[in-house]
């Protein structure tokens, strides 16, 4: 019997998982808004990946200057017009996608890496560890991230890296909260008790039983947070604490473009649309994921 099992094909061995996956895909595909989200996210990833090949004037994102060509309206040569340094806005918007992707991934990644272990530790071990971790988390949660991030970036000086550091510092507590609740509930589940009874180490229980069961809400939150992190970084950029010039960044572009409204409307409109679409895509996508992975938590 064990021999037969070893010979079973991948599909057979994972039949249950695959069936579930197919079901997920099916129910995801049934929702038009989820599919729209997926499409936008895919588009965003493609643009980020192939940006330098898509952008007609890639040098314009590296500090080129063409002062004779300032503030030209959208036309065939410059689809989104040009900015106050004579740079092609389409190229800058396209190349800023990569910055945003990097920002989103890093912030969410850092937040997960810090927040998930802390959350699991708090939920699983309880006691003093939990009290300390959760109180610290509460302190961070009591201040809106944007205000604390503003203070941090203002102190460190503007720049994408500083923005990421600041936003990562304010982002992880959400994951602690999420995972702690889940781990707390799992701690007393029969299968965890059973594992403990047969002498499994804490580390093993955490890795094999607790963590995998927390993944769905983490994935859902992470996909929503991608968009929100990008939005938050853009907000810092708007306040004037974004990417260092000449690096292209949507929020920073709008911050400069503001002065040029409404006569040179294209300057602010296109970077803003890019932010909106990206965040919308990740939100719709995350929403869709939640509906199938974590249906009970459909709360604001």
């Amino acid at each position, binding site marked *: 019997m064990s021999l037969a099992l070893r010979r079973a094909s991948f599909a057979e061995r994972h039949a249950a998982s695959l069936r579930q996956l197919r079901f997920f895909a099916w129910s995801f595909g049934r929702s038009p808004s989820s599919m729209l989200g997926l499409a936008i996210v895919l588009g965003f990833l493609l643009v980020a990946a192939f940006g330098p090949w898509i952008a007609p004037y890639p040098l314009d994102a590296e*500090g080129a200057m063409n002062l004779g060509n300032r503030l030209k309206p959208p036309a065939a040569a410059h689809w989104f017009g040009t900015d106050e340094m004579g740079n092609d806005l389409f190229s800058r918007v396209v190349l800023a996608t990569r910055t945003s992707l990097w920002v989103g991934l890093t912030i969410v990644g850092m937040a997960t890496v810090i927040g998930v272990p802390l959350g699991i530790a708090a939920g699983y071990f309880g006691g003093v560890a939990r009290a300390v971790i959760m109180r610290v988390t509460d302190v961070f949660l009591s201040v809106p991230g944007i205000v604390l991030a503003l203070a941090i970036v*203002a102190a460190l*000086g503007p720049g994408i890296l500083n923005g990421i550091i600041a936003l990562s510092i304010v982002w992880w507590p959400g994951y602690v909260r999420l995972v702690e609740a889940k781990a707390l509930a799992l701690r007393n589940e029969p299968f965890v008790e059973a594992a403990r009874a047969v002498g499994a180490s804490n580390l093993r229980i955490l890795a094999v039983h607790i963590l995998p069961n927390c993944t769905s809400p983490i994935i859902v939150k992470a996909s929503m947070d991608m968009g929100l992190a990008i939005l938050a970084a853009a907000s810092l950029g708007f306040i004037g*604490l974004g990417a*260092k010039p000449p690096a292209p960044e949507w929020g920073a572009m709008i911050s400069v473009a503001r*002065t040029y409204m409404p006569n040179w409307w294209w300057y602010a409109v296109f970077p803003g649309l890019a932010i909106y679409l990206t965040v919308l895509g990740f939100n719709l996508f995350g929403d869709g994921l939640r509906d199938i992975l974590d249906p009970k938590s459909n709360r604001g």
Partner: protein
Amino acid sequence: MQGPIIGRRGAIAAGLGAAGAFAAGSPARAFERDGNRKIFVFAGGQPVPVLDPHVRYDWSTRLIQQSVYDALAKYVNDPPQIVPWLAERWESNPAQTVWTFHLVRNAKFHNGDPVDAEAVRYSFERGLRLNKGVAWMLKDVLAPEAIKAVDAHTVQFTLTRAMPSFITYVPLWFIVNPKQVQANVANNDYGEGWLTRNEAGSGPFKVRRFEPQSVIQLDAVADYWKGWPQGDQRRLSGFIYRIVREPAARRAMLQRGEVDMITEVPADDFELLKNARGIKPEDHKGFTTFAITMNTTKGPTADLNVRKAIAHAMDYDALIQIHNGAATLLDSPFPDAIPGHVAVPGIPRRNLEKAREFLAKSAHPNGGFELEYVHVQGLEDPRRIGLALLNSLQPLNIKVNIVAQPWPTMVARGSKAETAPDMVSVYVTPVCTDPDVIAGKYHTRAHGQFWGMHHLTDAQIDGWVDAARVETDEAKRNALYADVQKRVVDLQPEIFGMLANRRWLMRDYLRGFQYCPLRLTGEFDLYPMWVDAA
């Protein structure tokens, strides 16, 4: 409705009530009215946190201070002149160490007290003792005890050394009413707490409403002791300064006629609006030098050849283009309105060949290094200039890292040679026509000041500057300053940039605007202005 100022909009809103007001978009309403007189409304982006004339000054603060207070003399016109004001005349001894001022007899403070010698003495003493704001101008030459009220109308200042330029600082020391101030002293603060938000002046306007971050409203003093140059019939009833942080919002307000004049207008907006119907521009050569200061003690810029290479690689045309043509390149470290200014021949202009030659002579013949360029956070022009610099240095294979920092951080870094950035954008507005203010930028004593971030030490410059500030013979003094200018250009502690024009946009019925380069960037003299409309 509640106050005596009734704008047309206010009346409409009051008439229509809550529901109607929503739709009441009344365009192109001009100045506010007060009976037959008009209230001039002006918008700028900078708040006025402190009224106290001895504690702080910047353009917006000085605009209000100059309107509320009087000084012994006043700067007017372009080129700048010093005209008698509270003092009807003055003289100094031949050594220029003792200065005597004779006051006018009819000046009085807003509360009716006469402006006498004691008020003048107290005000100068107060400025020196507080050791803030204006104190730096005179503290090294004037002890508080050395100011004497000789009689009710004569004040005498005895300086510790000859100071031919003493008079150029006098217009910046405003006279406060000692009786009012002393009545409001708390904890030996010379009334600083009180004068922050209240005034005790004798100027043509008095403060009516003071909301430092949003609105400052002044009322004209009907019986101002010096009278009104435009005639009593035309004089304003009052003035409102609205703090509107966004340039786009200011522009919209001017177009809609919600305000009569705006400043801090972005170059592109200025081009767009200067010929618009109902709007007229004021566009004048500036007095604020822009330079990119280089650290002469540390890193690649410690090498004179690197500094020369950078200065010859800089795209100076871009400096002008960034301002849409409204700027003049510096032909000397001194702005040309400063006495003793000489155009220095051979001041660097873009010449890549020369730049490469200089670089070849340096320790980094092929470039390959990165320089940090720091500017004050939130300022747009220095950011753009940073981009131009980045572009200019590409042919030399020098990278530029553009960094924005808050002013206090920049100053903290720049105060020490070891931490001062490679390059810093520095605007300097000379407060008066004393060449020492600008020559002192290159003296060793400038280290630690924000304009001294080059940390240049040169015995020759130090000697000339020290000699010039006490030299009573004008020709000799100017010769010394000419030497200073040439030497500074030779040592290239900075990239000499440009003077950006000072610009205002106003509705065409506004009259009496007088430009004087000695005012700070957006500042103007409110006193002679009036509204010419029915």
